[in-house]
């Protein structure tokens, strides 16, 4: 059997955590001050404990992929998926371990990379093609195909700044999928464009694998993963939690793990950034009757309860709790924030509870994640990312209140009327 196309052995990447909190001056000076301290300590041969300021974004990740494999990489936000892709795409170097890749590597990392708003569509096709590794001759020969795939023929000689974002994305994506690489790295880009464009793009990715290409595919969308991947692995906190294997098993491993997301995940690492003496110690989601909920339902009342512990001798002041509701990609949809309501309240000093009540949960059915944040006098003192990852079910809203195709992220209560006398 031939050597694998991609062979990763113990790939690891360590990052330094930059202290970005603190007053403005310190925030701007952080790197220089830190570096000087570090160098000074090294010069004085002091033992400089690196453990405190670094974390492993990826640790000992190994896998092999062969021709025609479509490897899905599954994991929560911050599990190390993007870091893995960056290492394979040589954007950044591993701290240890190594990987060997045969053949031309193409990346569909973020759409529009290399596009410049002042250049026309035509010029951008050439620039961005060259950046992802196509030769000029190659771009020329595929130019018509690229343009036809994107469907923006009419605007080719218009600066991209006059494009709608959808047009820009389609053109950029078209360039990228025409690279025809032997290895293709795909990072959650299929969420762009309308449904038919997504379908076309997925088909294009399938073509690459059918022609013997190898694909590494990152997505939060389990439907997409199960429809195009031939194998999958699950990452958790930078480590391989489920080794490369059957897609269905990897997905069910991941989902069962996600369902445990009801429990608070207090692991140290990037997920948890505690720097103050107030800590989040509990979190739950309740329905209108006080019953603890496993999933959220759009349109129904919901109560979020946060418990905290504090080492304060006096009642706590100037504290602000935030509940961040995010899309699966990590974009914040809403920030439920206690600043206005509780800002001037004094809270019990040892431990306590705060609750946040939402009358009709206005998020569309789909996958969301919730992160918690405590700030005191404008500084983050505790933060838990992805304390909850799960589904929002349809239910509380009547069908006609929802857009038919479940588009968008929020439900807005609204009414329509006809003014016939005008």
């Amino acid at each position, binding site marked *: 059997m031939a050597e694998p196309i991609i062979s990763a052995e113990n790939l690891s990447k360590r990052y330094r955590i930059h202290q970005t909190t603190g007053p403005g001056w310190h925030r701007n000076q952080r*790197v220089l001050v830190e570096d000087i301290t570090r160098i000074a300590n090294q010069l004085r041969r002091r033992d400089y404990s690196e453990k405190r300021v670094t974390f492993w974004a990826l640790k000992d990740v190994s896998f092999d992929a062969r021709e025609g494999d479509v490897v899905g990489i599954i994991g929560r936000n911050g599990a190390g998926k993007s870091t893995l892709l960056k290492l394979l795409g*040589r954007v950044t*170097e591993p701290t240890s*371990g190594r990987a060997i890749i*045969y053949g031309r590597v193409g990346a569909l990392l973020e759409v529009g*990379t290399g596009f410049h708003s002042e250049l026309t569509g035509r010029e951008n096709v050439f620039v961005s093609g060259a950046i992802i590794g196509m030769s000029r001759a190659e771009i020329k020969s595929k130019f018509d195909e690229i343009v036809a795939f994107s469907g923006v023929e009419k605007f080719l000689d218009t600066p991209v700044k006059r494009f709608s974002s959808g047009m820009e994305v389609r053109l950029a994506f078209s360039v990228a999928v025409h690279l025809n690489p032997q290895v293709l790295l795909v990072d959650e880009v299929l969420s762009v464009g309308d449904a038919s464009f997504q379908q076309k793009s997925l088909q294009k990715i399938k073509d690459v694998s059918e022609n*013997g290409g190898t694909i590494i595919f990152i997505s939060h969308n389990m439907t997409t993963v199960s429809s195009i991947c031939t194998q999958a692995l699950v990452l958790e906190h930078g480590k391989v939690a489920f080794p490369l294997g059957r897609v269905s098993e990897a997905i069910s491993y991941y989902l069962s793990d996600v369902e445990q997301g009801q429990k608070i995940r207090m692991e140290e690492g990037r997920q948890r950034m505690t720097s103050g003496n107030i800590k989040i110690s509990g979190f739950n989601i309740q329905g209108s009757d006080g019953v603890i909920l496993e999933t959220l339902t759009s349109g129904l009342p919901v109560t979020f309860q946060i418990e905290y512990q504090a080492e304060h001798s006096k009642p706590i002041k100037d504290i602000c709790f935030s509940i961040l509701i995010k899309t699966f990609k990590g974009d914040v949809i809403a920030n439920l924030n206690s600043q206005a309501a509780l800002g001037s309240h004094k809270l019990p000093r040892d431990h306590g509870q705060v609750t946040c009540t939402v009358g009709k949960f206005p998020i569309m059915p789909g996958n969301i994640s919730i992160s918690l944040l405590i700030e005191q006098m404008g500084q983050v003192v505790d933060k838990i990312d992805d304390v909850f990852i799960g589904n929002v079910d349809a239910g509380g809203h009547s069908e006609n209140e929802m857009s038919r195709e479940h588009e968008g992220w929020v439900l807005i209560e609204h009414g329509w009327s006809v003014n016939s006398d005008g």
Partner: protein
Amino acid sequence: MTMTITDRKQMHRTVIEPANNWLGINLKELWEYRELFWILALREIQLRYRQTILGVTWVVIQPLITTVLFTLIFGQLLNAPSENVSYSLFAFAGLLPWNIFSQSLQRAGVSLTREIRLITKIFFPRIIIPMASAASTLIDFLVSLVIMIILLYFFNIPISTHIFAIPILLCINLMLSIGVGIAFAALNVYYRDFTYVLPFVIQVWMYASPLAYSSKLIPPTWSWIYDLNPMVGVIDGFRWALFGTIDFPVHSLLYSLAIGTLVLLVGLVIFRRLERSFADVI
């Protein structure tokens, strides 16, 4: 079309591991990306005068205005000696190498921080970015050179074979600006302070170069230290090549060549050293 399991030996092989060859620049890889270099340089030229009324005319206007200013202030007001040619010619000949030096240094120095999206998303030899920025100023140089030749014609100064020295002088010039430029570009990724330091460096360097005045004004006892500025040899070299009214600046040009080589090597080492973490710190 189906691809059979091909012989691995014929395929491009990429090894991803922590770097240890921190002195070397992978020339083979650089060559593979040569088209990207030209496309990025071209892009910078295309972008420079977008949405301006005068467009590329600016390439002609800028050095001419500087020459007029120099002539009025240094030539007319201060009566600076100009090596037996008209002062404005003298000044323009000095601006020819200086402008490409300062512009390519300035552009290269801030080039990486303007390409955060590229650097954090996709791989290619990073050094292409500052080099393409520096190269994009060649077009200004060529236009200025044409103006220079037209001026020589009007001032009835014969063009000698000395003019063939210009490409060599230009190479020393670019070695210097790219060497300093890539070092600044890399340091700027870590500490943006260098964005603000760079204009001062260029300004001081300008006064330390025989741009508005003749290097003959420097007392011979000090010339050994003055000649340490590698631009002295380059600028004097240009004037020698264009007018022939001064002797060939052997001494200062040897300095330029030696220091230029050193600067380029140091620049490459700094760049290669810092390059590894660009995507993580930018």
